[in-house]
């Protein structure tokens, strides 16, 4: 086990570590953020001593203690076990007296390869929020602050009228949902209006999955209701609308749906809307095969997957 505690300039060190992980293309890394405001006062060294046994089987682990902010732990291997043990430890020994949240809301797990960009943006946002004269980059709709996961529903783009399913569409969707368990392969919907990017995504998914494609929001919504795909990869900037609106409509229809946003715009505003829509992933272009596979792996391991277990490597 190699464990390092980084206090000085921890934010920069963490960002460069995430970059390193992305370059390594290894999906075995895990990253957890521990929300320090819910923890009792504890010295950073003492904290590391407490978590050391949990990380003892990992071949590399680092703890980034960011001043006046959260603690980030990055480790190699056994993501689920380590996250589970961290939650246990935090809930049993480290919580402040008045905290009633469950440990999963305090120790938040990320796949650094999928969520690295989001974390980087959030860290930079945190930085600018601390500067009193920092320019306000958000629009009024996205400025609402509050708990880490909760944006007001009012900030979400509302589904356009044509995204209200008709009774016949709902019936077709119910039938498709019922048929999901009989699928031998995962069915994936790719929504992308640029032929080049659509072709790239088809290439990434070739052979292993049933892939449906749509070039616009209306076509995608029709196809979604007809097929009830296992995963939907949605481009945000579509020619006939906004992928966030489609994501929102899908999540309203089925909160368990697996929706991954794919975009060339990783602004904090986009990330906040995606987060408020509770989508399952956020992939920034240009992406690699590895990033798309990690999203699919995450879905397969989420307990939501009913199809494709045999075919999925």
């Amino acid at each position: 086990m190699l464990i390092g505690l980084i206090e000085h300039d921890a934010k920069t060190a963490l960002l460069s570590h995430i970059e390193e992980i992305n370059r390594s293309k290894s999906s075995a890394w895990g990253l957890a953020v521990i929300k320090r405001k819910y923890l009792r006062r504890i010295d950073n060294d003492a904290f590391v001593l407490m978590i050391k046994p949990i990380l003892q089987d990992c071949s590399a682990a680092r703890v980034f203690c960011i001043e006046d902010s959260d603690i980030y732990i990055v480790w190699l291997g056994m993501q689920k076990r380590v996250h589970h043990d961290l939650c246990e430890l935090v809930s049993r020994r480290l919580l402040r007296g008045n905290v009633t949240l469950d440990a999963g809301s305090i120790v938040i797990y990320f796949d650094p390869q999928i969520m690295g960009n989001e974390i980087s943006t959030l860290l930079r946002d945190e930085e600018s929020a601390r500067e009193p004269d920092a320019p306000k980059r958000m629009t009024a709709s996205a400025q609402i602050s509050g708990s880490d996961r909760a944006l007001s529903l009012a900030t979400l783009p509302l589904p356009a009228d044509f995204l209200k399913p008709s009774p016949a569409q709902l019936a077709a969707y119910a039938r498709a949902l019922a048929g999901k368990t009989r699928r031998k392969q995962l069915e994936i919907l790719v929504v992308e209006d640029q032929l080049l990017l659509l072709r790239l995504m088809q290439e990434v998914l070739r052979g292993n999955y049933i892939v449906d494609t749509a070039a616009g929001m209306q076509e995608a919504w029709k196809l979604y209701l007809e097929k009830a795909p296992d995963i939907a990869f949605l481009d945000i900037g579509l020619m006939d609308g906004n992928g966030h609106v489609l994501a929102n409509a899908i999540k309203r229809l089925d909160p368990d749906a697996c929706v991954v946003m794919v975009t060339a715009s990783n602004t904090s505003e986009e990330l906040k809307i995606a987060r408020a829509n509770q989508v399952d992933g956020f992939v920034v272009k240009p992406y690699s095969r590895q990033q798309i596979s990690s999203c699919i792996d995450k879905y397969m391991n989420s307990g939501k997957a009913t199809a494709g277990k045999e075919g999925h490597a």
Partner: protein
Amino acid sequence: MNLPVDLAVLRQVTEGDIALESELFKVFLNSAKECIGALRLHCRSGNQEEWRRHAHAFKSISYGIGALRLADLCRQAQEGFQNPALNKYQYLAGIEAEFTEVELQLKSL
């Protein structure tokens, strides 16, 4: 100086499949020319939303192919969608110059 197209980006997906790369280059060059045509049109028409949309589309495909400098120029054009026509012509000139470099590199492969 770095090449206009970082082929390593595209190869994260193509894994060196030459036939596929050649197909993707053709698709890219066609789409890029359409985007440039649309940007030129909306520079004149003053339709800000159409300018923003096409700059965004161009940015996306440029990232896809690994033309990172071109993607950055398109990003600037997208963000400057509310600027006056003169600025837009400047964005467009930069984009067209970089696209020429990209095209040269892709055609030399």
